[in-house]
């Protein structure tokens, strides 16, 4: 109605309307635009600005804000490639993502299978309890884990290991099985790395468990029964019935959690600032420290742009080949 009246109204106007790239049917766009604008102004615009900073020689906060910095082209990126700390940080980050992802998948699948098992009484309550970590603030849980990984003789894990040692010695176990307590969880390189991975797995497993459990519950019971009638053992049923059902969701959850792991900042920062001796600086921590502790704002911006580019690339590949955007094309 309204549009036909407008068409009558004037030839110029209707020609203008047909020249526009959208029409009255596209009013859905209006619902989306506010979110896009908010997101772009607070997230995309800073990235663009960060890229600009990465091309300057900004070395103190004032020069970033006041604009006293000179454009120096790609010099920061060149310096970055020569910085051994960058390569060490990059490889540590990838190792962290890979190791924690593998552990996460095994832990989450194990928990989901157990808490979906017909023989476990009260599994609904257990499931409710097990996903609780998802609801706690990261700064809270990560600080608690730092406390448990305390270097002190009476830190939680060191005490537990001490008890374990006493127990094993009582069984007169060989020396190899004993731990050399106290372990400096936060002061050794690989000990700290181990602590990071443990914490990361603990933070991420609830999300995976939720997704895997809901996939498991969609598997019809009759499939299992049919497999059992055919004489399939537990392992065979896992391979032929369970695995195909959870493969998609596990891949999906892996992509999402791997991308978060890559940007993990709080764990290394709260634990020991990416130490000891900067050996465990994950990429974001590295970039943050270059700015905060060393005032290398241009270099820091370059590092963070590289990190963002990596995550973006990872997500692009994941979305394209992991079927993450399956629903996008449908209407």
């Amino acid at each position, binding site marked *: 109605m309204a549009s036909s009246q407008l068409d009558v109204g004037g030839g110029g106007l209707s020609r203008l309307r047909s020249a526009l790239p959208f029409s009255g049917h596209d009013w*859905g766009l209006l619902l989306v635009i506010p979110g896009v604008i908010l997101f772009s102004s607070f997230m995309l615009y800073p990235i663009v600005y960060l890229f600009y900073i990465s091309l300057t020689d900004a070395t103190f906060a004032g020069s*970033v804000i006041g604009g006293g910095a000179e454009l120096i082209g790609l010099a920061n990126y060149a310096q970055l490639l020569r910085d051994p700390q960058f390569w060490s940080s990059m490889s540590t980050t990838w190792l962290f993502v890979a190791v924690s992802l593998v552990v996460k998948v095994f832990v989450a699948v194990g928990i989901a299978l157990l808490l979906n098992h017909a023989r476990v009484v009260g599994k609904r309550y257990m499931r409710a309890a*097990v996903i609780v970590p998802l609801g*706690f603030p990261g700064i809270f849980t990560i600080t608690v884990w730092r406390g448990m990984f305390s270097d002190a003789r009476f830190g*939680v894990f060191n*005490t537990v290991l001490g008890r374990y040692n006493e127990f094993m010695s009582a069984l007169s176990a060989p020396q190899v099985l004993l731990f050399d307590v106290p372990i400096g969880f936060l002061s050794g390189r690989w000990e700290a790395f181990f602590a990071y991975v443990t914490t990361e797995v603990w933070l991420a497993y609830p999300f995976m468990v939720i997704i895997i459990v809901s996939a498991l519950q969609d598997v019809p019971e009759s499939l299992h029964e049919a497999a059992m009638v055919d004489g399939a053992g537990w392992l065979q049923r896992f391979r032929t019935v369970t695995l195909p059902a959870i493969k998609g969701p596990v891949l999906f959850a892996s992509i999402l959690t791997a991308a978060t792991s890559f*940007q993990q900042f709080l764990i290394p920062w709260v634990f020991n600032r990416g130490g000891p001796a900067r050996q465990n600086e994950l990429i974001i921590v590295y970039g943050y420290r270059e700015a905060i502790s060393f005032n290398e704002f241009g270099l820091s911006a370059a590092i*963070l742009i590289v990190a963002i580019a990596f995550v973006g690339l990872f997500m692009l590949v994941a*979305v394209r080949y992991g079927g993450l955007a399956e629903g*996008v094309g449908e209407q």
Partner: protein
Amino acid sequence: MSAIRSFAALVAAKLVAFATAPKRFVVTVQRAIYDLRTGKRTPWDVAKSVLMTLFGLAMVLVLLFPLFWIFAASLAEGTRLFTTSGIFPDPSTYNLGAYRWVIFESDFFFVDGDWGYPQLVLGGSGGLVSFRWAGTETGPGAVFNSLYIVSVTLAAGFGMIVPAAYAFSRRKFVGRKRILYGYVLFTQIGAGLSIATLVALYSLFSSYGLTNNLFVLGLFYAASAIPFNTWLLKTYMDNIPVSYEEAAMVDGASFFDTIREVILPLTKPGLAVVLIFVWLAGWNEFIIAQTLLRPENYPLSVELYNIATEGRFSTPWTRFAAFANLFALPVAIVYFAAQRSVEDGLSFGGMEG
């Protein structure tokens, strides 16, 4: 109002379910014994169930150990936490001293825990003698800053996420695919990205004079929550058959009726999840807040971080624990009530297989 009532009913139902759980457990045990006696199940069969259950229980205990530990620690104010005798403090020394500290001495509710004081008023409008609560002298504390930020985040977030999710799920428009694709790319880039852009953010905020502004910070958190939650809600809405709306339309419902009577009620679990995630986005973040705000505007998350890092090597664990428990309490309550919805809403119906 009705939302509050239904929320209360939900919590009550949960509590009843928890309170009656032991009875149902006893019934399960009795049935197992009966089955054993009558020979319906073999002892080995029952033993397998018991073992599996114990195994599950042990796993839950191990997984939640950090939370037990910190809860026990919060009750141990004034005692030495790390001792030779064990990890957990001695139950006979449990006390609420740390919570007292949080409420009446820390900046949690009011600066320096100054709640104001009751004042006796002679005469006046309230009768011959009446009580009045005199205001605090030091000002409101961190919890009000946090609540303010979260309200802005929730209002802005919901105002933008819900309509956008509806449009993505039900409407065709120019650029739909491209925008949605962009959102999916950014789904998992929340907190990490904000820290990455911190340097740029700080200078941008300073040059526009927006630092130390809680409102803008709330908007910022909403922006960081938009891609993931829009996408999540869109996938959830995709699972609602379009035929429901068509049926309502045939019955004479207007467009807004279909939204109110069909879409919103059926999307409730999805909305619950989005509520929690958007809340967490505003409630938990602290690096940006610490950088952009001045101490009088610090929200709870920054205060918590400051307690955690007070001494380089010695976190005051009991006080930290009490503070953190109170900090996490609102989320825990909502989470507890909406736990079913969280599982449903996060299951990504369209993503399976």
